[in-house]
């Protein structure tokens, strides 16, 4: 009996430990380890360290939106992905991609302080995260309250972006890197889609250049997806589509002008100005090809 009690005590302690591990979120939810359909040996073709090297900031849910705001481009609701179909997604791959897409939309909504409209997106993200068993990193109630009350946009942005960072980290650390790769792809693709749609009506040079600069990133994105691209037809199709998008970038050129950085101190803060410069050359025809291909891939994903 004593032996049984001891085992039970240890089990209870373990349960307590795991339930407390992700504090500040849905703390009481215990996550059972799951085995996704991708064989671990596939994922191991690219080491965790190598993936870490690649992924930091590839798909930031807020950077493109921040640029749009800075360029004083108005918010355009029509560019957001529909949330109506999200309930019908059946595979984890579809859910992970869509989680990324809605993450970028959430960043766009929050940066523009359209927090009232963000609640529906938050709710959809919450369901998708639960479906992928990463819901413990998404504190829906706190995020919803922050959005409804418009009380603290900084906290809302911090919590929502950090939730994505934590989901990404958790998936990679738990041999579910293929889902993390899809989520990051979704974030990147939606940000790219928003920029491509907006540049049609607001052909600002900075926005054109930002789209052109994605030539650097799409290579790493493909590297991130490559270890899994034979794992399913769905995955292979996405990979091949992104390869086609990469081809559209072949005539984008990026040149570099050397220069030494300058450092000044102002109000106790160190300010560094980089004088080395990158310059993007992208013709209107090439831009048009990139816009069309991006639109095609993104719309294919959200029509699933």
């Amino acid at each position, binding site marked *: 009996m004593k032996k049984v009690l001891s085992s039970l005590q240890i089990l209870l302690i373990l349960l307590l*430990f795991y339930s*407390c591990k992700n*504090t500040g979120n849905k703390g009481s939810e215990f996550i059972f380890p799951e085995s996704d359909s991708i064989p671990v040996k596939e994922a191991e073709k690219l080491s965790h360290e190598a993936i*870490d090297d690649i992924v930091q900031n*590839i798909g930031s849910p807020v950077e493109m939106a921040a640029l749009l705001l800075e360029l004083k481009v108005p918010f355009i609701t029509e560019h957001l992905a529909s949330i109506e179909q999200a309930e019908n997604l059946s595979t984890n791959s579809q859910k992970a991609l869509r989680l990324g897409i809605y993450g970028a939309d959430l960043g766009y909504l929050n940066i523009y302080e359209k927090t009232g409209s963000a609640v529906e997106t938050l709710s959809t993200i919450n369901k998708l995260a639960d479906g992928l068993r990463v819901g413990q990193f998404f504190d829906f109630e706190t995020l919803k309250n922050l959005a409804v009350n418009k009380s603290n946009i900084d906290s809302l942005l911090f919590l929502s*972006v*950090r939730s994505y960072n934590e989901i990404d980290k958790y998936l990679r650390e738990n041999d579910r890197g293929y889902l993390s790769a899809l989520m990051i792809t979704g974030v990147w693709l939606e940000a790219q889609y928003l920029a491509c749609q907006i540049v049609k009506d607001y052909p600002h040079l900075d926005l054109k250049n930002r789209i052109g600069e994605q030539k*650097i990133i799409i290579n790493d994105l493909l590297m991130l997806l490559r270890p899994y691209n034979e794992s399913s037809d769905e995955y292979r199709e996405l990979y091949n589509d992104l390869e086609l998008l990469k081809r559209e970038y072949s005539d984008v050129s990026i040149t570099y002008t050397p220069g030494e950085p300058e450092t000044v101190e102002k109000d106790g803060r160190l300010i*560094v100005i*980089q004088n080395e410069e990158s310059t993007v050359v992208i013709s209107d025809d090439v831009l048009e090809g990139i816009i069309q291909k991006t639109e095609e891939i993104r719309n294919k994903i959200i029509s699933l």
Partner: protein
Amino acid sequence: MKRTTIVFITLLLAAFALNAQDQQEMVTDCALSIGGNTTYLKDFVIKLPESTDQGNIPVHKENIYLMKKQRYLFTQCNANDSEGELTIELYDANNLISSSINKNNGRVYSSVEFSCNKTGLYTIWYSFKDGKKGTGVGIVSLLK
């Protein structure tokens, strides 16, 4: 004996749980202390041992994409019990762009603003001043 084992395991697990909670709070406190005019992008929790050799200080490296025409803020916070002071160096390939430590007077800046003019992959080197043992968090945010 069994009771001792259980107490030991309990304490060990509690320590892990507290550590995770402390880290979470440290990141949140640091990110929200930066103030307005910034948008959080990333955080990196850094824990490094004491250096045994001053010429070989332990470093935690992170790669990050930075975009042209964006201003980034790198903020470093130290855990309450950290012996060392967290510093950063920003590298573009092998070229040092900036350091949060003034080599002339030893002053450590808790934040470094970087006006990026070249889109690409950069490496942040986190270490503790003088190779001391330490725990801290580095936050990367976007300046509005």
